């Protein structure tokens, strides 16, 4: 993770946010 290129941070951020959304929507507790 320390070697992750700074220039890719926006792509990484988007990926992590969408992943969180996908996981949350799969949760049985999701509204």
């Amino acid at each position, binding site marked *: *993770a320390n070697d992750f290129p700074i220039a890719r941070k926006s792509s990484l951020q988007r990926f992590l946010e969408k992943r969180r959304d996908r996981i949350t929507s799969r949760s049985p507790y999701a509204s």
Partner: protein
Amino acid sequence: PSMAVFNQETLQQRLQALIEGARESWTYAIFWQSSVDFSGASLLGWGDGYYKGEEDKGKRKMTPSSVSEQEHRKKVLRELNSLISGTASSSDDAVDEEVTDTEWFFLVSMTQSFVNGAGLPGQALFNSSPVWVVGTERLMSSPCERARQAQVFGLQTMVCIPSANGVVELGSTELIYQSSDLMNKVRVLFNFNN
């Protein structure tokens, strides 16, 4: 009527449009951006990517050997999450969910680049010709490291289509055979004027 201007925002929208508008089930799309390094050699590096995921996500059974691999992936993801959020540790439950093979392959792709002619994306750019590899056997026996890596992570189809400024790569966990419709879409969506 004018051609699109290349920028990060429209790039993401184009990748999304390409995947979400396709009849086939693509797992991800990446735009490898062409540039020139300090020595004057041409290089393909990460431009942007759109990850959709696969239909059977989460159904795969964990094998004992993949438990330690999962721990490693989760650890890296926690660190990356901290890098983004700016906090030392994360209490985000989503980070501790299983990191699928295709998620990991996509994530690792962000750190990769290809010199002219190397790898499937480099080959497509160098020959100005699309590369379409379908099936586990063909991916596994490819001289390109990226194709073999894709097969290891469960992908069954990998396509690289050259365009202005770079190469569009698509991957799927399903078998998808060559389609002129997809190539036409790439030509329209990624025909930048700068």
